[in-house]
């Protein structure tokens, strides 16, 4: 089939996105995120398995000060 579909021109090679445009996008994303952050909730949170409460473990290092 491909022999019937040969073109008479060469397709331009797709340019790779430059590092600057990637950086620009990251900056835009960051700016957008920080603007949108005003809509965020009171506090972030994650719940894994059924762990509602975590009381520390013996492996946890001790802190500079205790509460």
């Amino acid at each position, binding site marked *: 089939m491909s022999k019937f579909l040969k073109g008479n021109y060469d397709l331009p090679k797709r340019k790779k996105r430059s590092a600057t445009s990637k950086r620009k996008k990251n900056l835009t994303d960051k700016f957008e*995120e920080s603007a949108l952050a005003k809509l*965020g909730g*009171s506090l*972030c*949170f994650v719940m894994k398995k059924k762990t509602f409460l*975590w009381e520390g473990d013996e492996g946890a290092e001790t802190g500079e000060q*205790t*509460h």
Partner: protein
Amino acid sequence: MQRLASRLISLMPRLTVIRSSAKALENAQHNLPYGSRTILDLVNRLTPKGPKSAIVIAAGPSLHRKNPVRTILKNRYQGEVIAVDGALAYCLRNGLVPDYVVTLDPHPTRVCRWFGDPELESRPDDDYFRRQEMDPYLGIDEYARNRELIDLVNRHGPKIRAIISTSVAPAVTRRCLEAGMQLYWWNPIFDDVEDPESMTQRVYRLNKVPCMVSGGNVGSAAWIFAHQVLRKKEVALVGMDLSYTPDTPIEKTQYSKEIRDLFGERATDAFIRVHNPYLKETWYSDPAYYWYRQTFLQMAREADCVTFNCTEGGILFGKPIRFVPLLEFFNKRNRKRKRS
């Protein structure tokens, strides 16, 4: 649901991290000198004969439409009452002194107002309370009502235990202490608690305070406290709308200013309309509150308690939550008591 709203909901976890985590960490550091007791001290005090149920009083608009405190007092409820900070003034004004008040949000000035803010008159003007209907009473003649609230909280403070997150502003901590409340500390679980490099473990190493899932908002945190710390098997919620009444103008919603600034004419697309089949009404929510709702339903499936949503308003319904009027919750309990 509009595409804008669903995109914002998917971004909520990340946006919330950006909005509040740094402040929460900073506050945890500043709160170090104030701690002694933690929520685990309450676990150690539990007795098998203690009440098996609790009512969580959140600060949604149904609180002022339905006045659940009147029903609670009329039914001489014997269980424990846990108010969120935003509902404290409503409770005290109506003659109910809660056993506990839960506070979580790291905002530097606004949260203090729920306890009566002694610095209010010297702070820059903030229309946050005027433009919303969280507690309409406090939104009128603000300075006079703030002074009233200071007196009220000072009078009843010694009877109330503050379930205080290390993320709150030190001004809130000082206010609770000034009012004579006993403070019981907890750290919110911010991220993967099993990861030694997580923010949660970093805060834990700093203060050695037990960590609890917050659900992202103080109402959810109060519900988690009820079944995880107080070990209640039945928890009723009132004022837990996580949304706005069908007739609330968008300008009166919590994030309206920010949504208008960001999206202009598309602002209405950021809101989510939810039909409540129990009420046969359509309430509406913003991305943050809708996210709270979805995560609450997920958590409720894992919780070791039966949750009754007695708000009689809002959008928090779905398995396994029982959406019933508050009076029905009391009647059920009375029937149970008579049988036994």
